[in-house]
């Protein structure tokens, strides 16, 4: 009956209602599949406790919110001039004022108590099973295993999402912007201490699933810790604005069983020995250039661009530049030592002689440049 009377007054109501229902149905079925509403699923004890604390605070806040605005909306409903409500003229009540000062203060103490416990736990980085130094570099992460099983392993972790995907010339992959060449590998159920620092500007190392975020500050060491509760791959991103490619330096952590970890450590150490290039070896221009293209794609392309045109004036072009077509020594020095106070970092610390020789050769023989090859030995000779 109510429906038919509504229909009588609003003849188009059924079609509008049906349309709205279809729209909402589609929207919400889509939303339910695609949307995240809450913190990422916790994969460590700390993260789980943060979830609980957040939920607890949200419940309290929601209750207070509903209470306070219940009063407001009751006023809006009942005490309106259009209904002829006469305003009462009270404007003070000390008891009420005292109550709504003291009660919120008590609620705050109720919140502060569990929060304090968790702050103290979060700060307790003692007795770690494994210590890893994380260095933020524009725009990649360097990992050095400095204590515990795997000590001595170090590598650099760089975004592998191709520029074609970022620029929309290729379909985006499942882990778009959250994939790297070398993942940080740690064992499950072990206390991992992270010591963060940076080479240039401030970055922040963040893995939401572990409830860990630590600013990486150049010139200082700051630590935090996590204990992954399950195996799997966990992804995060740099959380502190660190320049142009801030959005393109993900953190990827692979948590494995203890056995797999020991195996990984063995493989990695062997690979590091096997991979080490002999800097005395002479390579052909073609080989150097081919290898250099990969190094360029991982380290240089964001600023100097695939076209070699750069983004002047901040990021200078290499195509036709004085350095990339002039004396080899100057070019090698620039790549080895960087340029102070710019995003051009000292790659001497990150790359091996062969890689540097390769990328310099690539730069000197691509686009319009034809300036010949640079051999690893020449790079080694200019290291200080």
């Amino acid at each position: 009956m109510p429906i038919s009377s509504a229909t009588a007054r609003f003849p188009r109501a059924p079609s509008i209602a049906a349309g709205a229902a279809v729209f909402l149905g589609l929207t919400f079925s889509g939303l339910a599949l695609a949307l995240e509403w809450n913190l990422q699923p916790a994969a460590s004890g700390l993260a789980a406790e943060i979830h609980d604390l957040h939920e607890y605070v949200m419940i309290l806040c929601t209750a207070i919110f509903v209470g306070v605005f219940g009063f407001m909306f009751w006023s809006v409903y009942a005490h309106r001039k259009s209904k002829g409500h006469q305003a009462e003229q009270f404007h003070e009540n000390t008891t009420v004022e005292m109550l709504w000062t003291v009660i919120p203060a008590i609620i705050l103490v109720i919140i502060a108590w569990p929060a304090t416990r968790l702050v103290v736990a979060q700060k307790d980085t003692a007795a770690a099973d494994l210590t890893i130094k994380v260095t933020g570099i524009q725009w990649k992460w360097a990992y050095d295993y400095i204590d515990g099983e795997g000590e001595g392993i170090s590598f650099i972790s760089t975004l592998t999402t191709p520029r074609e995907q970022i620029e929309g010339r290729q379909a985006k992959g499942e882990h778009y912007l959250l994939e790297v060449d070398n993942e940080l590998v740690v064992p499950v159920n072990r206390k991992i201490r992270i010591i963060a620092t940076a080479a240039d500007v401030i970055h922040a190392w963040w893995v939401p699933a572990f409830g860990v975020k630590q600013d990486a500050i150049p010139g200082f060491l700051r630590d935090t810790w996590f204990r992954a509760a399950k195996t799997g791959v966990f992804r995060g991103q740099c959380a502190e604005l660190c320049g142009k490619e801030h959005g393109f330096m993900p953190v990827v952590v692979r948590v494995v069983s203890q056995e797999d970890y020991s195996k990984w450590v063995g493989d990695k150490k062997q690979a590091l020995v096997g991979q080490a290039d002999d800097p005395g070896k002479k390579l052909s221009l073609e080989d150097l250039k081919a290898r250099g293209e990969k190094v360029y794609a991982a380290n240089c392309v964001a600023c100097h661009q695939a076209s070699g045109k750069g983004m002047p004036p901040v990021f200078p072009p290499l195509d036709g530049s004085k350095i990339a077509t002039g004396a080899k020594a100057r070019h090698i020095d620039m790549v080895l030592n960087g340029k102070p106070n710019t995003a051009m970092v000292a790659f001497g610390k990150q790359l091996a002689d062969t890689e540097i020789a390769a990328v310099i050769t690539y730069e000197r023989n691509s686009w319009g440049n034809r300036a010949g090859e640079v051999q690893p030995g020449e790079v080694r000779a200019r290291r200080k």
Partner: protein
Amino acid sequence: MSAVVDSHGHGHAHDYGDHHGGYGGIMRWITTTNHKDIGTLYLWFSLLMFGVGGIMAVVIRAELFSPGLQFVDPDFFNQLTTMHGLIMIFGAIMPAFVGFANWQIPMMIGAPDMAFARLNNWSFWLLPFASTLLVLSFLMPGGAPGVGWTMYAPLTVQMGMGMDFTIFAVHLLGMSSILGAINIITTILNLRAPGMTLLRMPLFVWTWLITAYLLLAVMPVLAGAVTMTLTDRHFGTTFFNAAGGGDPVLYQHIFWFFGHPEVYVVALPAFGVISQVIPAFSRKPLFGYASMVYATAAIAIISFIVWAHHMYTTGMPVTGQLFFMYATMLVAVPTGVKVFNWVATMWKGSLSFETPMLFAMGFLFMFTLGGFTGLVLSIVPVDIQLQDTYYVVAHFHYVMVAGALFAAFAGIYFWLPKWTGRMYHETLGKIHFWLTLVFFNMIFFVQHFLGLAGMPRRIPDYPLMFETWNQISSLGAFGMGLAQLLFVYIVVKCIRSGAPAPQKPWDGADSLEWTHLPTPAPYHSFETPPVLR
């Protein structure tokens, strides 16, 4: 009573034209020392900057509509977020409330004008030059700085010449704020009409008195921080460089010692406007006037001891984290008192819902929401998850937009009749409110979810899982931008062809500008002080 007021008003109407200092046209505005002219300049300037910053926001949201890089490169994206923040805070919101202060304080305390009339002219005219410098930085080699409005070291050292333009612009903006603050304090303390004791001042005047002291305390600190950045960049100092014995985190301490009170520089005058509007449309005196004054002062004082809650993830000692967590939670108490007092003012009133009241209620509802997310962020372990995510972006836009901007809209609709002598179009005003409310929440409510799910702020591109919320948010931003064109139309229409306004269009309003001055207010508010009982 009304007879007295009218003769007062006629006296002014008679010689209205003689008071522009003899100049007409553009020179009137350049040479003016009149608080109303300067207030008008501040408000129009603020509207212009609101447009400039708003366009930047729309470009940012267009880029973020879908994953991948579409319209701007990452470098320019960072420049936009930086300039959007600086322009909205220093160019739009702060000047808007200084505009309110200029118009309202002399009228509300029974004074003829501001205490330092020429200084007042200068503190306004610094602004266009400062903002020009700021915007010109886009044209410098390397463009505007892409460091975020917080300008953290040592990223600032990598920037081009645009960074120096921005630093000088901040110096000028700070100078303007300090001069304005000195003027406001002097005016309030010295030019009150006889009988207008401090505890009889309208709350808007109180909030501005406290805000002005905050400005005096913190603007020099910001000037220091950016000057140290300047010398680090050019003169070989290493304040923020560990290699020379400095510390990048030192910058953050200095910046946020300015930055947190700055939040209240923006919020307190907004509280003041709301405290005038809600009683007027509830037809009932403000509940707990004295406790409102004390709560405002308490918020101002606490704001000086909470700065490091912006820095929980820098690696503070556990005692530091706990201290700043407790101090920050404490802000909730006086803020809560204010919200309760506003709701109690409405309780058993006789409410009507004209546009100013709608914006005031929108403020109350959403500013409180922003306050609650602030409480969530004050809790160290939770903040460590949410620091530098879109949750923070959502939080401070609830405070800055739903807080400060909604209060500014409430104030403009409330006082436009007094300022212009004409009524705005009520229905259009209400439409403006509802559009702004809906689009605002569309932009920012969903950003809470993005932040919780782990989307960092200040990124031009993002993983695929964040796409849908970003699309909703961007659509909201486009709508919000269009809705503000309606606001401009309403204001212009009101000035040019609004119906004449009575002396007191809001029957519940009770401060001096409504009770003792005709509409539109005379050029010099009170040449002889009003007599207060």
